[in-house]
């Protein structure tokens, strides 16, 4: 999020505003996805992808089916 911070800086938002926005966004992630996934969403990209990969692989080993029906139209 270095780039995001830099752009926000370029927009002229003071640090206190940026901090409030970031806190509000993190609280949303906790509400919407739960504490664990909120934590994962804010991990560095490589670690996040590794976590999701392990989660999907584990689910597949347990027999979870991910495929969507092929309906000829995007759902």
């Amino acid at each position, binding site marked *: 999020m270095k780039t995001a*911070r830099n752009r926000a800086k370029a927009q002229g938002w003071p640090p206190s505003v940026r901090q409030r926005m970031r806190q509000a966004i993190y609280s949303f992630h906790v509400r919407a*996805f739960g504490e664990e996934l909120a934590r994962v969403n804010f991990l560095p990209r490589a670690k996040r992808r590794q*976590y999701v990969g392990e989660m999907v692989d584990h689910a597949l080993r347990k027999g979870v089916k991910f495929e969507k029906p092929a309906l000829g139209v995007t759902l």
Partner: protein
Amino acid sequence: MLALRGSILYKRSNMPLSYAQLERFYERLVTKARDGGIPCAITSGMACVAFGVAQTTKDCDLLCAPAAASKLLDLLSRTSLMGRLPAYRGDLSAPLDERWFRGGWTSHFVWNAAGIDAYLDVFGVAPRGSSPWQTELEGFYACRHTVAEMKRTNRERDWPYVTALGAQMIEAGDARGWLHIFDEDLLVALTQAARPPASLINQRPVLGLAVKGDLRLRSALHAEVQLWHELDRARIRVYLGAARPYASAVSKARLAPGAALEVQHRTRLQCAQEHLPSNPLEDYGVGRLINDARTALKRLVNPAALAWLPDVRDHFKLTQA
């Protein structure tokens, strides 16, 4: 070659391909396609994972420029995964052809590799996309704005992803993110910290309610989400209705199992030419679709909230082009 032939042995089960390998397979497919002059980008779930909104998915949704559909088909027919070539999936899958791609149809493919099926859905027009996805990419992926528009589906579970992507855009200084915040608490908190541009408040009236701290915000947001739900339901109904005769023809064609992708494609193309309208949404009428959705909405929400709905026509103009 794009083929991935490696195999990973997990603790107690032999899982031939991990999610990470599958992801690399699709990214290499995009690289190969772009090197071959095929504009394309991964979208939906895999894009969300890349953007920092974790989602459990292993299927790949790929946007491809309609004009490059035949080139992509050629590439796919040569792309193996663990020694297996892809096949069309399902009778409803449209042929990977420019005419049907422009009309908003999707082509579904599967690699039946040992121990894992890899799914690829390809489409030319991003549903609900208000601008051409090709003009803005983020690496292997469609941009956040496109992905967020596509995620305005009739599935409840997609909406937190829309809001999360919108929040990232705002934080990154992309004002279009204000169009994607559908969580009331977050919208209130963000508008207390910063003000959306006036042009976006005109485009999305609920933003004005949030800025003023108007108590009608909750019902207006609810109505807005329900409008997108109804629009998506109506869109899918139109396409599925138009696809029935085609699906029946594909089913009757009874291709030999394991037929080459080119053979499968020729059969589907023949069935499509006879039975599949290229652009059912245009035939039905976008105005009529929007009216259908708004009529359904009147039965679901507080009628006063209808005053705050956005004009959604721009989100269907690309299918009409």
